[in-house]
């Protein structure tokens, strides 16, 4: 036996171990996504679909106010929720990751943030209904406090309710990564800067924020991927008034309009790819983690 064949025999081990995983992901993730692209060019009739290539569904998508509107709504809601989760999550992460000195306490706080995930996702969405409704908790409290004289009606079944719901459900994905990055900052750097007479604002913008940026990017990727692919929250909290690309896909599949669902799917994939690529441009994750 030559040395080369010996080496090859050795290297077969990892190949057999990794092969099932590769096959699974190829068959049930790559091929399905390729299918979406493929079927988006199929010919759709009312109840049927045939593989004759056509651009009809694509033209229909870009000619329709409903579909283009859904695209813009998706992007708008994504941007608002992203900003909201960041704005709401960052101070929490700052406290958990940097201000809490004890490791145990910061772990406990993070666990507390994660506990709500033990409730089913759909139930968590649904729980906002009695909160936001006309006779909901927020209106009751505000009325009791005499802040308002009439119940606010725009709280539920509007874009606002969708944004509130998504922000609550996804902000933890922002808190976690940022807190992790903040926790890794060497406290001595901050002490040294303070000794040199730098105020907190200056320390924050010059040291803390740049060092936490990889966490922000990871959090933003998590939130973006999930919000862009959403349809349940928007469906349940907007009373079908807010239509995201995800809702379009669900509706189209429901009425067996596979080609149109696929077009929406491809557009969603493209948007998502661009968003992730843009985030990865800000920070080179491989270098940071």
């Amino acid at each position: 036996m030559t040395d080369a064949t010996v080496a090859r025999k050795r290297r077969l081990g990892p190949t057999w171990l990794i092969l099932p995983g590769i096959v699974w992901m190829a068959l049930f993730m790559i091929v399905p996504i390729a299918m979406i692209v493929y079927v988006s060019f199929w010919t759709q009739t009312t109840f049927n679909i045939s593989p004759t290539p056509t651009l009809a569904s694509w033209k229909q998508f870009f000619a329709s106010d409903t579909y283009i509107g859904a695209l813009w709504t998706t992007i708008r809601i994504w941007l608002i929720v992203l900003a909201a989760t960041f704005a709401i999550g960052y101070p929490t992460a700052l406290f958990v990751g940097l201000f809490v000195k004890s490791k145990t306490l910061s772990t406990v706080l993070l666990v507390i943030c994660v506990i709500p995930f033990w409730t089913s996702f759909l139930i968590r969405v649904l729980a906002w209904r009695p909160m936001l409704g006309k006779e909901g908790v927020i209106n009751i409290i505000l009325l009791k406090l005499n802040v308002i004289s009439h119940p606010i009606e725009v709280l539920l079944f509007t874009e606002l309710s969708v944004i509130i719901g998504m922000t609550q459900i996804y902000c933890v994905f922002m808190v976690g990564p940022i807190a992790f990055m903040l926790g890794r900052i060497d406290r001595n750097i901050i002490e040294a800067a303070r000794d040199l007479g730098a105020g907190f604002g200056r320390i924050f913008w010059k040291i803390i924020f740049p060092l936490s940026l990889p966490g922000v990017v990871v959090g933003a990727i998590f939130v973006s991927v999930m919000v862009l692919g959403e349809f349940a929250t928007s469906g349940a909290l907007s009373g079908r008034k807010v239509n995201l690309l995800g809702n379009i896909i669900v509706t189209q599949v429901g009425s067996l309009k596979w080609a149109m669902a696929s077009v929406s799917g491809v557009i969603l994939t493209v948007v998502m790819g661009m968003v992730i690529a843009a985030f990865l441009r800000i920070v080179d994750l491989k270098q940071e983690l």
Partner: protein
Amino acid sequence: MGAGCKNLRSTVTGRMTTGAAIFRIDGVSKSYGGVKALDSVTLEAGVNEYVSLLGPSGSGKTTLLRVIAGFEVPDVGRVVFQGRDITGLPAHERGIGFVFQNFALFPHLTVKKNVAFGMMNGGVAVPAAEIDQRCQAMIDMVGLSGLEDRGVEQISGGQRQRVALARTLVMQPKLVLLDEPLGALDANLRGRMRNELRAIRERMGVTFLHVTGSETEALAMGDRIVVLDRGRIIQAGTPDDVYSAPSSPAVAHFLNRFNLFDGTLTAGKFTGPFGTVASPHAVRAPQDVYAIRYDRVNVLPLTATVSGPALKATYIASEYLGSSVMNFFETSDGKVVEVEHHLSLGAPEIYVARQDYLLTWNPEQAIVFGREAT
């Protein structure tokens, strides 16, 4: 260098001590990402021999052991064990024992289960009664009786070392590889385990190949020492051979027993900081170096007259080593010269700090390396 290498290799293979070779590695090379860890190494060991493999970290000594064990496959070269080419054989089919520096005990098993592990899970079925009997005998031999049912995290470092050894020896291998087995122990324990290792090996009649970075350990334990540097074997021989006749400045340096002086060797004369000394028996080496053992240097008052080498040096400090005293002197160009005084030769001289002395020695006892030597 190439010629020197060939020369050394023949020294290695020629120096068989006892009986037939139990294993041989032949021109083994191994690189990691362009860095040569082993550079055509050839080495043999005889039946029932204790071989110490000495080298600084990064010399490739651990890689060599891992190649023999079958944890790494050499890029070129062959490994032969008991007359059979095992280069392509996986580790578990080799029957070669391995003792790790960190012991690598199975943390989830008791002492006894650790020792029995190979017999219970190995390819050859061993009857339960025999497993029990062999385990007990081995545990008794390494002095672990009474600790059989302890977890391996519940025993001390020295006891773990014994478990590692027992676990390996109970499989009755003909060759055991030890990768710095005493490195994780404290100094006191290391000395005791050294004797025990030797005693156990003699009782079992098995070949040990012991890798170490400590020259004391290598000199103390091996029937034969093999010195490794940058992936090559640079000297092999009995401890006495290596100690009294290091084959190169590098070996002399590793042994940590020699004062080394730079200088020039011309026409059989070495010129160094101590003057010019006739050196008719110089050893061929890539640079000119003059080596004199710590315990061969004499200290004289500055006023003394000497005929041989003479080196003016300032006394700095001394260190008591138990059986000897190490005195440190500094020459005018800042080089530290060590002088060892064995207490068996009488009480040590008392030197005055910061005072100059004259260091001298018998030039016959020096080892001279040079480019012009043959």
